[in-house]
């Protein structure tokens, strides 16, 4: 606990680093603004001094700058190329033998260069929509300060609930576009600041490679050079530890869960960063953890008969967002190698549907026994809200010679039905080992976090929206309601090898019973492997009875460049219908959809597991 706190402390410091840079930049800008202001007043004074008053002096032959009268033959002045005023020879500045400017035109040009105005003019040609003089640093700092102010106010509703009264969607959209660029920038800052904290780990982890006294280590240096960014990413991911925010959320969840059972208190966490699932928190706790678990899940293992039982306990530590799987013992296992009466059992767990190494944990191997005692705790760092989409797979294996593994049985625990608040569930229990279940073959491709709400104007809300609702009820009722859905973020998306990062976006397609399709699309979030869109879909003019029989497909895509077709990354369906046969793996979808419909005008946080079978979705 203390170790983690120190780490977080460092992370905070690193977050400060970027802010410190931005503040430094702000200071520099302030000095520069002051300089520019002086330049502009100087120019203005110069103008006033020589200003030719058009009203009465215009016909007079005099220099436009110094007011000296000009002769008809001698010293008759000349017209300035820039301002077309006639000026005397003394008020000219020669740039080269063929070109001159009057003093004011010269000063004006000089000012443009000196103030950097030329740059903003040029940039406005390319990016016409953007704030002319505002720099990225200024924007970031502004949005950071704004957001940090917001986060101080305790239970603010999420930004988009401000105008949830149902009738204000146009206003909402406007506000959204207005804030979008700034918000996007902030998002990138926020995500980066979160990532930044990992760079420290990188450095310490690779210290030996990074310092420069190599001596004989030229090869290692070569390695380090060729190490790709993605490799570094993976490395840092493994090093990850829960952030302070995670800890805070964890404790808040802890408190809240008892009051609002079954429903995630997401409404209370406005910009809650819904922290990444971080596995491998338990690496240092004595359990085996290997990265290259290539194919124990594939079919290249031997099957023995399945007998016996396993004793374990499950608990969830809200404070640290940790799922603990305490493996105590097994008994009456079948022999891994029956002829030799040999058995070297060990226990392996996955948090399905994630079958990657990230979700794998193993105990040590006990040699020569069919009644092994393990007394080991395998840990997963995972948000409580994500547990309900997961299934814990606990399997027992025999470690044979030459990596020959024999399957001895497994137990599957759907975590959505597990009551972690009930202490009796946390004690040790014996479970019968079962043979491998072969059904769910749909491949997992990450998770999508959304926040949904059915807006029904006719039904007054309980809380602060009450006054709003009183006004706009009648005319709204005729149009039916609105389904609001905020696409928050996706996690554990498959990373395309060829690209390295994702330019992802979300399509939402609501298919009504009459086969009408309402479609929405989020903006593309570039170069993010864990995209946080925070984008609101509004499906207008739908009634709850329609939605009863409708389904909503949310699909995630990677935008392809050069007109190639976008690549499907994963999808999820919300529906009351019995799931289509091939999408069998999302049994909660029905419950969730029902939950949204039954509680109108309440935000509902939902975690959906994404599936890779593109064919079943509408988009």
């Amino acid at each position: 606990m203390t170790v983690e706190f120190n780490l977080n402390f460092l992370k905070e410091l690193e977050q400060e680093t970027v802010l410190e840079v931005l503040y430094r930049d702000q200071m520099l800008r302030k000095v520069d603004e002051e300089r520019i202001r002086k330049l502009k007043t100087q120019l203005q004074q110069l103008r006033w001094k020589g200003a030719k008053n058009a009203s009465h002096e215009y016909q007079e032959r005099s220099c436009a700058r110094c007011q000296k009268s000009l002769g008809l033959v001698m010293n008759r002045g000349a017209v300035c190329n820039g301002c077309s005023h006639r000026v005397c020879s003394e008020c000219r500045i020669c740039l080269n033998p063929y070109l001159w400017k009057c003093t004011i035109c010269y000063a004006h040009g000089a000012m443009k260069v000196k103030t950097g105005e030329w740059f903003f003019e040029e940039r406005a040609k390319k990016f016409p929509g953007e704030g002319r003089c505002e720099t990225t640093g200024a924007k970031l700092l502004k949005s950071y300060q704004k957001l940090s102010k917001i986060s101080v106010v305790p239970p603010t509703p999420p930004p988009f609930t401000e105008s949830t009264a149902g009738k204000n969607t146009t206003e909402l959209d406007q506000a959204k576009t207005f804030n979008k660029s700034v918000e996007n920038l902030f998002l990138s800052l926020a995500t980066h600041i979160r990532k930044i904290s990992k760079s420290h780990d990188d450095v310490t982890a690779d210290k030996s490679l990074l310092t420069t006294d190599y001596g004989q280590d030229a090869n290692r240096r070569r390695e380090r050079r060729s190490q790709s960014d993605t490799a570094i990413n993976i490395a840092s991911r493994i090093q990850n530890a829960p952030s302070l925010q995670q800890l805070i959320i964890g404790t808040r969840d802890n408190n809240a869960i008892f009051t609002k059972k079954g429903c995630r208190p997401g409404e209370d966490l406005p910009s809650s960063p819904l922290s990444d699932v971080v596995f491998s928190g338990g690496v240092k706790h004595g359990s085996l953890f290997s990265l290259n678990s290539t194919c124990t899940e594939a079919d290249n293992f031997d099957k023995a008969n399945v007998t016996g039982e396993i004793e374990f306990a499950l608990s969830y530590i809200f404070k640290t967002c940790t799922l603990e799987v305490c493996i105590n013992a097994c008994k009456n296992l079948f022999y891994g190698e029956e002829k030799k009466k040999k058995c070297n059992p060990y226990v392996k767990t996955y948090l399905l549907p994630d079958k990657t190494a990230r979700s794998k944990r193993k105990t040590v191997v006990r040699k020569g026994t069919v009644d092994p005692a393990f007394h080991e705790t395998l840990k997963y760092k995972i948000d409580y809200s994500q547990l309900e989409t997961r299934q814990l797979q606990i399997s027992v294996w025999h470690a044979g010679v030459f990596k020959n593994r024999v399957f001895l049985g497994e137990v599957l625990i759907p975590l959505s039905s597990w009551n972690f608040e009930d202490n009796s569930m946390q004690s040790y229990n014996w479970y019968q080992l079962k043979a491998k279940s072969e059904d769910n073959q749909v491949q997992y491709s990450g998770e999508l976090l959304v926040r949904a709400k059915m807006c029904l104007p006719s039904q007054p809300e309980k809380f602060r929206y009450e006054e709003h609702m009183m006004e706009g009820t009648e005319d709204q009722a005729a149009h039916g309601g609105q389904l609001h859905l905020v696409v928050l973020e996706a996690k554990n998306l498959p990373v395309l090898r060829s690209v390295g990062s994702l330019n992802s976006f979300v399509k939402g397609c609501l298919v009504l019973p009459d086969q009408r399709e309402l479609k929405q699309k989020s903006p593309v979030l570039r170069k993010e492997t864990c995209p946080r869109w925070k984008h609101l879909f509004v499906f207008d003019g739908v009634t709850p009875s329609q939605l009863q029989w409708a389904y909503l497909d949310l699909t995630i895509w990677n935008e392809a460049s050069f007109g190639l077709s976008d690549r499907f990354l994963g999808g999820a369906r919300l529906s009351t219908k019995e799931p289509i046969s091939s999408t069998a793996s999302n049994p909660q979808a029905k419950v969730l959809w029902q939950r949204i419909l039954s509680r109108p005008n309440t935000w509902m946080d939902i975690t959906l597991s994404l599936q890779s079978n593109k064919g079943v979705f509408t988009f």
Partner: protein
Amino acid sequence: MQSSGLQPDSAVLAWAAQKFIPWSIKISTMTDGDYDYLIKLLALGDSGVGKTTFLYRYTDNKFNPKFITTVGIDFREKRVVYNSRGPNGSSGKAFKVHLQLWDTAGQERFRSLTTAFFRDAMGFLLMFDLTSQQSFLNVRNWMSQLQANAYCENPDIVLIGNKADLSDQREVNERQAKDLADKYGIPYFETSAATGQNVEKSVDTLLDLIMKRMEQCVDKTQVSDTANGGSSGKLESAKPEDRKCAC
């Protein structure tokens, strides 16, 4: 980010000292607004090519062989005196220039943050590592990033092949790099932050390009072609009161 761990031997140092000619550079106090131009440059390139170290060499004339990953963004400052040269090579006016040198993280995961800063820079130091073919290959990607995010389609860029001192580990030959630079129509320098070789020269070249562009931006509205040697800030664009004077 220079990866050389070896201290340059005395001969190299002596050579560097000889080579290092501060032609127009003078450091002054940095907190006041007493300068004529604020020029913002930005260094970009793959992780580990030596951007931070390069800038450190440029601003402080020191070499730090340690690799410290840049956290997102950073910047350094330096004041220099820019001597504009007249058309006939005569030295023109001297201007005080405040340089803000943005340093960016090369790592992919910072990419969206760093590219957001591209739009504020007036010139770019695009760096690769002469001892890493991959970092050179990625120059093309960086160029397209620049085209997408910089303030205009063809901003001023210098291509810099860094770590020239590590000649025994060289993977990119000069011809290759020169050809690529020519293709883009940008200058190319082989530099070493460890020895200081060409560090100033490359930044000065970029500064020169920017100063020229500034002048052109201001005067191109009217002047067709006058041999503009360089004294900056000379010309004037069309002003709103655009009436022809009859007299």
